[in-house]
């Protein structure tokens, strides 16, 4: 039975999971959500996600939700069948990957999400863009990327070798590059810029964003 992924095809959270599926070469079916009402029904809430959100992954009878939890589950179960290592076996290396995953959650995603909300999602909802929020968020993100610039010195990826931590950063960065005018926030920092380019050149990236 194929793995089924339920989500909004273009959303960064769904794409986070698709990136892992593509990195590990796992076949899957994407059930695209077209109307938000489908994920707010009693049935969806009881059987798929109690908070009425996507993505949700169904692997046979096993249902997992929350994009980063899904990604970790896929790695735990299927990485051994793939040549790509997203999560090291060594406990010390793994913990550093977790650390960088936490940076993404704590210092990268929050300001970046605010920028994306104002510049893309607010517009779709017909809300005015709050320029002050965009400005403050870009300042916060700049401070984070200054730290990343140092972390990436002499390294190809955050923990040296490519890992889940790098992958988690991709979806929101992709939207900044493809749909906003703010890519200079990455490109003005040489190590960060090279890191992003390396990520964009991976086969799994190209496959995910070609679809």
């Amino acid at each position: 039975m194929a793995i089924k992924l339920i989500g909004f095809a273009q959303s960064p959270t769904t794409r986070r999971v698709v990136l892992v599926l593509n990195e590990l070469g796992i076949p899957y079916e994407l059930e695209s959500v077209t109307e938000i009402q489908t994920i707010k029904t009693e049935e969806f809430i009881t059987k798929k996600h109690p908070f009425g959100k996507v993505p949700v992954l169904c692997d046979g009878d096993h249902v997992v939700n929350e994009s980063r939890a899904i990604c970790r589950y896929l790695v735990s179960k299927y990485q051994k069948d793939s040549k790509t290592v997203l999560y090291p076996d060594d406990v010390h290396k793994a913990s550093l990957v977790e650390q960088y995953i936490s940076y993404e959650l704590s210092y990268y995603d929050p300001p970046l999400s605010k920028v994306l909300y104002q510049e893309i999602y607010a517009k779709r909802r017909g809300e005015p863009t709050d320029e002050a929020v965009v400005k403050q968020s870009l300042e916060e993100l700049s401070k984070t990327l200054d730290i990343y610039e140092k972390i990436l010195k002499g390294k190809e990826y955050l923990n040296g070798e490519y890992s889940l931590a790098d992958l988690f950063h991709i979806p929101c960065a992709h939207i900044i590059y493809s749909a906003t005018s703010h890519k200079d926030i990455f490109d003005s920092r040489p190590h960060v810029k090279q890191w992003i380019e390396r990520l964009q050149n991976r086969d799994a990236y190209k496959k995910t964003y070609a679809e």
Partner: protein
Amino acid sequence: MTIKLIGFPYSGPTMRVIITLRELGLPYEFETPANFEVLKTEDFLANKNPFGKIPVLFDGDFRIIESRSICRYLASKYQGKNNNTILIPNDVHKAGLVDQFVSFEIFYYDPPAFKFVSQEVFAEKFWNKNPDPEIIKQGREELIKVLDIYEKLLEGKEYLNGEFSLADIYHSPYTHYVYGVAKHSELWDSRPNVKNWWNRLRNREAVKKTLEEIP
């Protein structure tokens, strides 16, 4: 070689790590920085945490930051070694669900709980500001919706994923702050499953001791 933890005993993230260390029966040294300014010095940023935050853990020469990464590392390395407490299940499906509940904590539970904590506990004490009633009101409305969902999730279960796990530990510090310090206990106590869950959690040795040590 000892484990050294740097942090403040009243900080939520630090408490997550302390509870984990205690649950795993691990001895450690605890170092409290003299004040917040220490965290922004060149030395701290270069050698402890480039983001100028606590907690920071040293295991011999190995350094790790970010409370949930630290907890996960400790569980991966030490669980089952000093006692029988398992915080991350070995079974890949169960572990996946624990991660899911961790994600609920990060994205749905923590943000509204922190709205209370920041305004009702930290604002005056640390930032010299008056609590903002608008933020508290928002926090309350959001947290009520989340606790209604948790009430269903906890039906027939002692802990979020059935057995005690890292996910339950992570919820403890801010729950204590909103329940016990800011005194909004009715939010939990009015929901029987949630009430039992929190009672069970806060009466665990490791959790109880850590909460009692908040200055």
